[in-house]
């Protein structure tokens, strides 16, 4: 039996005998985003996990701050900060098993790092010495995808391939609210549902696509409601509640792993910083909105909860801070070193074997560089 045949077929029956179709009700998201912190659901949460989340959130925030600082020092070409969205970034990484795959969007450096990728290698793209800095196979993390939504079909294909091979691997793909408008989002979700591929789609609805607010991006009741049009469940979650995001993602991952098919998760969050260091957010939003969201800060929410429940004390806060500072210092130190650059590498990975044509061009560049060198050493051209 093929994968295709495993699930019931949706077919228009010859009227007048209309067959009742799948009931859409279970696919629809709840009216309210799921929350755990500050609700009764917290009782079931694993304290170890909560503490782990806390440490990672603090590290994540520190990472965002450090990377932003590095742009000011000219050490990074650009940095799209995920400050305010750390709960989503961290939970996405932590909800996966080692054998699973993460497909980050361009804003998700933090999720990549939380998954175990070297914090400096994760920044190669944004530093600009190469496109992708890490080995995607080392931690099963696809390259950060600059073209929006395009990495979603990759996640579906990979998950499908794993399933065909009999591996119980799940792929988690990340995207922003703006990215959901792209055709690739649609095609990926449809393929995933038709193939019942083990994929989880995480939409971080942070309110904006650069300057464009969600109201200009969609008229849907919520982005999670898009799920029903593909025949997969949609889930809404408070994206600043790390425990809630982790729970919803873990459920979706489990469901996918067990053959239950894909899930679409919308995490409602907010981008506290500008789009990137190059952006001027005051052009399109007011301070009041930002302040309201600062009050709903993911770290503060978790810290409050942990403190109230006696799971975190001053020493714990300090330890997390300390750990984050060490990470930041190491990162700073790494990033302050100039990357090793060899222009000859330009020609190395265009094809499996460098073509005669590229060998010619490599020779040209080598001659130029030698001439440059001679000039610098000798004095005249």
């Amino acid at each position, binding site marked *: 039996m093929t994968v295709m045949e495993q699930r019931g077929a949706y077919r228009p029956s010859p009227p007048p005998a209309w067959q009742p179709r799948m009931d859409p009700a279970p696919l629809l998201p709840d009216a309210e985003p799921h929350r755990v912190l500050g609700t009764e659901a917290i009782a079931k949460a694993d304290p170890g996990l909560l503490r782990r989340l806390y440490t990672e959130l603090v590290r994540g925030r520190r990472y965002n701050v450090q990377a932003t600082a590095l742009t000011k020092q000219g050490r990074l070409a650009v940095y799209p900060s995920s400050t305010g969205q750390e709960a989503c970034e961290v939970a996405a990484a932590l909800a996966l098993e080692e054998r699973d795959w993460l497909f980050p969007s361009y804003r998700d450096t933090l999720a990549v790092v939380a998954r175990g990728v070297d914090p400096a290698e994760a920044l190669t793209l944004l530093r600009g010495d190469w496109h992708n800095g890490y080995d995607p196979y080392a931690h099963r993390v696809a390259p950060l995808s600059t073209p929006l939504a*395009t990495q979603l*079909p*990759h996640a579906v*294909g990979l*998950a499908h391939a794993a399933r065909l091979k009999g591996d119980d691997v799940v792929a988690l793909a990340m995207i922003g609210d703006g990215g959901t408008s792209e055709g690739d989002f649609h095609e990926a979700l449809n393929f995933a549902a038709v193939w019942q591929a083990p994929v989880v789609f995480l939409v971080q609805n942070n309110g904006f696509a650069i300057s464009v607010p969600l109201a200009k991006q969609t008229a849907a009741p919520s982005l999670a409601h898009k799920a029903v049009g593909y025949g997969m469940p949609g889930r809404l979650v408070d994206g600043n509640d790390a425990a809630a995001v982790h729970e919803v993602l873990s459920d979706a991952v489990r469901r996918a792993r067990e053959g239950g098919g894909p899930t679409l998760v919308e995490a409602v969050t907010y981008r506290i910083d500008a789009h990137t260091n190059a952006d001027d957010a005051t052009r399109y939003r007011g301070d009041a909105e930002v302040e309201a969201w600062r009050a709903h800060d993911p770290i503060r929410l978790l810290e409050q909860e942990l403190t109230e429940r006696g799971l975190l004390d001053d020493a714990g806060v300090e330890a997390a801070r300390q750990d984050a500072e060490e990470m930041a210092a190491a990162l700073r130190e790494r990033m302050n070193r100039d990357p090793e650059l060899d222009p000859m590498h330009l020609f*190395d990975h265009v094809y*499996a074997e460098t073509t*005669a044509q590229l060998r010619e061009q490599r020779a040209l560049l080598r001659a130029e560089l030698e001439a440059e060198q001679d000039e610098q050493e000798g004095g005249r051209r």
Partner: protein
Amino acid sequence: MTTVAVKPATMAQALTRAMRDAMAADPTVHVMGEDVGTLGGVFRVTDGLAKEFGEDRCTDTPLAEAGILGTAVGMAMYGLRPVVEMQFDAFAYPAFEQLISHVSRMRNRTRGRMPLPITVRVPYGGGIGGVEHHSDSSEAYYMATPGLHVVTPATVADAYGLLRRSIASDDPVVFLEPKRLYWSKDTWNPEQPTEVEPIGRAVVRRAGRSATLITYGPSVPVCLEAAEAAQAEGWDLEVIDLRSLVPFDDETVCAAVRRTGRAVVVHESTGFGGPGGEIAARITERCFHHLEAPVLRVAGFDLPYPPPMLERHHLPGVDRILDAVARLQWEAEG
């Protein structure tokens, strides 16, 4: 496998056989696309594959070309070798972003760690009476995209050999299938398919001393016909079948042009911005002092592919090729 005739075989059958043999030899080879499974493709090129290898190996996908190529990327990331069919040339355009932004660049992006061994089969070209959007020659787009190989067969044997090579390649290959040669026949024996040379080698289809016709895919038979007709005019024309536009075989092409001193590039694709410009320019760069005349081009006109009833006026035919040969400044010779 009942669909492959013993001999003579059509190009379509040779292509089917190439996929079948590749799938049999390598369990990671997966065929996917619109109607490729149950139907066997609108040109029947994947006929029988779903039956022999199951629908998970030869899959009818949803109708979405970016999704097809995009999921193929993910499958390749996980170690599969997807062979993707685009139903017609113009219907590959929705997959353009995936092709340009990911397929062609993933190896480079990841410093060789994540190669994408994907073959994108695109039936291309006109001459089959197809309505709008069914006869495009889109090779210029692919040629201008580093990281892709661009391969196109002109014979039954090459169809088999080059497709096997393409599927086996660790690089992505855009495999352009000349639609109007699908039903061309040859006495190629599918039970003993000849090995072809690696991708990137042109072949001299006809030796000649007067001038060199440089061509590929659907225009190869036309050029051979023109070469026959040219004998009456006293011209002994050489015909080169490029077989691969990327990599480009400068060696074979330049050796020929240096011998004859005259060349015409022939293709269906529009002339302006088409492959012929690149080919003529590189020949001229490399063989300038051997040229008795500028390298001329015979190509489709610079217009959207015409409706079927007018396509014969658009396509490079024997007369137009011979007219170009006549313009190769023979008087200069003495």
